[in-house]
C-alpha cells in the first residue's frame, strides 16, 4: 500500500513538474522601424491574450510564454530570427511577424520545419509558396491581390461622370507591389486606362517629384500602395503640390494608425483607403469593445497606438484561434492544429473567421473607408463613429462617398 502511495506521489510530482514546463510561442515583431507603430500595439494585444489564457490555467494545463525578437521592419532580419527560435530557443509554436515584407522571409524556414504558421496581415504572402499550413488573419479574401483593391475600383465605377484614367504608384517592396499588381488587374478588368504606373525605392523621403509627375499625367483617380513612412510622405506631398484628382488613396498602410491620423489630420479629408475595423455601428462584433477597452488601458504611456483599432483586434483574434486549436486537438502536433484551423469556423473578437483557399479568408472583408471632417491635432475624434465612414462592401456600409477628392 505504501509503495503504491509513493508511486502515485512520484507520478503526480513528475506530472506537476512537466506541467510547469511552459508552452513557448516564438515570433519576430516590428518593434522599431516603419511598422513599429502597429507592431508594438500588436504585441500588447498578444500579451493580453497570453495573460487571459494563463489566468484560466494556460493551454493544456501549461502556462504560455512568448519568445520574441525585434525585426526592426527589416526583412533580412527575419530568417535568422526564426532559425534561432526553432533551433536554439526550441519553441513549440510559431506565429508570424507583422506585415507582408516580414512574413514572406520566414516562409522557407517555417516550411522546412513543417510548422503551422498563423500570419498577421500579409498580402498574398502565400501565393507563390502555396503552403498548406499557412493561415492569414487579415480578411483580404481568397484572391487577396485583387480583393484588396476591388472596393476602390467598384466605388470609382459607380460615380458620375465615370472616371476614365488611373495612376498607380507603389513602393518597391513586397506588400505594395502585390497591391499594385491587384490594382492593375482590376483596372484592366473594369475598363480604366492606366496613365501612370511606377514604383519608388522604399527609402524615398521626397515624394514631391513623384506627385508632380503623377499630376502631369492628369489621372482621374490615384491608387497608392505604400508603407507608413511613405504613406505619410505621399499625403503631405499631395497637399504640397495641390494634387487635383477625383479619388486618392487605396492601399496605404499607416493611415490606420492613430498617431499618423492625428499628425496628418485634415490632410486626410476625403482620402479613400482600406481598413479592417473602424468604430462604426455596423462593425460592433461581440467582445471587440471589451477587448479595446483592455488594450487602451494597457497601451497608456507605452508610446504605442493609443486607440488600437487596426492591428490589435486581429492580433488578439489570431491568438484566439491558435489557442482554440491547441485546446481542441489537445496537442502541439502541427498537422493536427493545421487541420483544425482549416476545417472550422472560429469565434473571435473580429467576428466569425473561416479560412479558405491558400489559408486566406473564405470571404473578403476589405473595407473601403473615407476620412471625413477631420480637425487638426485631435486624437479623440477618431475614437468614435463618423470620421471614418465605411463605403464598401454593402454588408458593412455606414455612409455614402464624398466625391471628388479635390477639384
Amino acid at each position, binding site marked *: 500500500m505504501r509503495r503504491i502511495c509513493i508511486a502515485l506521489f512520484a507520478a503526480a510530482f513528475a506530472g506537476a513538474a512537466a506541467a510547469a514546463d511552459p508552452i513557448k510561442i516564438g515570433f519576430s515583431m516590428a518593434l522599431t522601424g516603419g511598422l513599429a507603430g502597429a507592431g508594438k500595439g500588436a504585441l500588447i494585444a498578444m500579451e493580453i491574450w497570453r495573460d487571459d489564457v494563463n489566468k484560466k490555467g494556460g493551454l493544456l494545463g501549461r502556462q504560455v510564454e512568448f519568445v520574441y525578437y525585434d525585426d*526592426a521592419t*527589416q526583412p533580412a532580419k527575419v530568417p535568422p530570427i526564426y532559425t534561432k527560435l526553432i533551433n536554439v530557443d526550441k519553441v513549440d509554436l510559431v506565429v508570424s511577424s507583422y506585415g507582408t515584407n516580414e512574413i514572406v522571409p520566414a516562409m522557407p524556414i517555417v516550411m522546412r520545419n513543417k510548422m503551422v504558421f498563423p500570419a498577421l496581415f500579409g498580402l498574398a504572402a502565400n501565393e507563390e509558396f502555396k503552403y498548406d499550413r499557412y493561415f492569414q488573419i487579415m480578411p483580404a479574401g481568397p484572391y487577396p491581390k485583387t480583393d484588396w483593391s476591388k472596393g476602390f475600383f467598384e466605388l470609382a465605377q459607380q460615380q458620375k461622370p465615370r472616371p476614365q484614367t488611373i495612376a498607380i504608384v507603389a513602393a518597391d517592396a513586397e506588400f505594395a507591389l502585390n497591391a499594385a499588381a491587384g490594382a492593375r488587374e482590376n483596372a484592366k478588368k473594369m475598363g480604366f486606362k492606366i496613365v501612370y504606373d511606377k*514604383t519608388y*525605392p522604399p527609402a524615398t523621403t521626397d515624394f514631391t*517629384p513623384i506627385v*508632380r*509627375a503623377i499630376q*502631369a499625367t492628369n489621372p482621374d483617380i490615384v491608387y497608392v500602395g505604400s508603407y507608413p513612412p511613405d504613406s505619410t510622405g505621399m499625403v503631405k506631398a499631395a497637399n*504640397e503640390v495641390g494634387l487635383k484628382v477625383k479619388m486618392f488613396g487605396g492601399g496605404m498602410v499607416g493611415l490606420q494608425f492613430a498617431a499618423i491620423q492625428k499628425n496628418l489630420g485634415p490632410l486626410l479629408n476625403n482620402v479613400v483607403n482600406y481598413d479592417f475595423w473602424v468604430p462604426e455601428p455596423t462593425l460592433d462584433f461581440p467582445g471587440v469593445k471589451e477587448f479595446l477597452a483592455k488594450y487602451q488601458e494597457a497601451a497608456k504611456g507605452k508610446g504605442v497606438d493609443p486607440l488600437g483599432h487596426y492591428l490589435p483586434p486581429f492580433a488578439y483574434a489570431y491568438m484566439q484561434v491558435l489557442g482554440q486549436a491547441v485546446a481542441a486537438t489537445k496537442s502541439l502536433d502541427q498537422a493536427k492544429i493545421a487541420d483544425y484551423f482549416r476545417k472550422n469556423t472560429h469565434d473571435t473578437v473580429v467576428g466569425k473567421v473561416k479560412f479558405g483557399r491558400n489559408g486566406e479568408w473564405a470571404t473578403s472583408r476589405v473595407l473601403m473607408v473615407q476620412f471625413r471632417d477631420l480637425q487638426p491635432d485631435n486624437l479623440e475624434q477618431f475614437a468614435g463613429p463618423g470620421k471614418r465612414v465605411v463605403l464598401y462592401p454593402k454588408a458593412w456600409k455606414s455612409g455614402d462617398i464624398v466625391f471628388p477628392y479635390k477639384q
Partner: protein
Amino acid sequence: MFSADLLANAVVSGLLLGGFYAAVAIGLAIVFGQLDIVNIAHPAFVIVGSYTAYILNSRFGLDPVLVGVLAAPLFFIVGVAIYRIYYAAFERTGQESLSGLAFFFGLMFIIEVTLILVYGVDYRLVSAGYSAQTLAFGFVDLPGRMLVPFVVAMTLTAAVWLYLSRTFMGRAIQAVAQDRGALQLMGADPVRIKQWAFGLGIATAAIAGALLIIIGPVEPSVGRQYIGRVFAIVVLGGMGSIQGMLIAALLLGVTENLVSTFYGPSWAPAVAFGVLLATLAVRPAGLFGR
C-alpha cells in the same frame, strides 16, 4: 508626359536641393578640398546635427536652424578633438592614406550604430512653421521646406567663402594646403591651422544637419546616401575651390531631380556616384581644381 510646367518645377526644386547639398558638402570641401583629409564620416556628423535639431526642436520647440547655429561651436570643438587624434595617430607618422581612411570609416560606423542604439531606426521629423507652406510664382512652386534650407545654405557658403578669402585664419588655411613648408617658415603652426579648419568643417555639419531634417525625415542610415553626393560635389567642383563646389552642388541637385522626375526615383541614387566616377575617369581635377 513632358510638360513645361513639370520641367520648370523639376529644375527649380533641383536648384533648391542643390543649394542644400552645398551646405552638406562645404565641410568636406574645407577638410578634403583644402587639407586632403578624407573625412568619409562627414555625412555621419551631419546626421548627428539632424538629431541635435530634432531633440531640441521636439523638447523645447526651438527652430531647427537656430539649433544648428547654436550647436555649431560645440561641433567645432568636437572637430578639433578628432583632428588631434587623427594627427597624433596618422599624420605625424606619415600613414595617412590607408589607416586614415579606415579610421574615418570606422568612425562613421560607430556614429551610425550609436544613433541606432540610442534612437532606433524610426524616422524623425521636426515641425517648423514654414515647412508646410508653399510660395507660388506662376506655375512654379517654392515649398517652404526647401526654400528656407536653400537660403540658409547660400548664406553659409557665402560666409565660409568670405572667411577663407578675407580673414587671416582663412587665408592661412588656404596657405597650408598650398605650401606647408613656406607657412612654417613664416612662423605659423600648420597643425594649429589644420585643427582650426577641421573644426570649422565639422561645425558646418551642425547647420547642414538641421537643414536636412527640415527637408525630410531622417534616420541613422540616411547619411550613407550623402557620402557619394558630397564626394561627387567636391571632386567635380575641384579641390580647393568653394565656387566650384557650389556650382557642382547645383548641377548635381538639378540632375538628380530631373532623373527622379522623368525616369523615376529609383535611379536617383546612382546619379551622384555616376557623376563621381565619370569625373574621376575623365577630368579628375574637376571643374575649377588646382
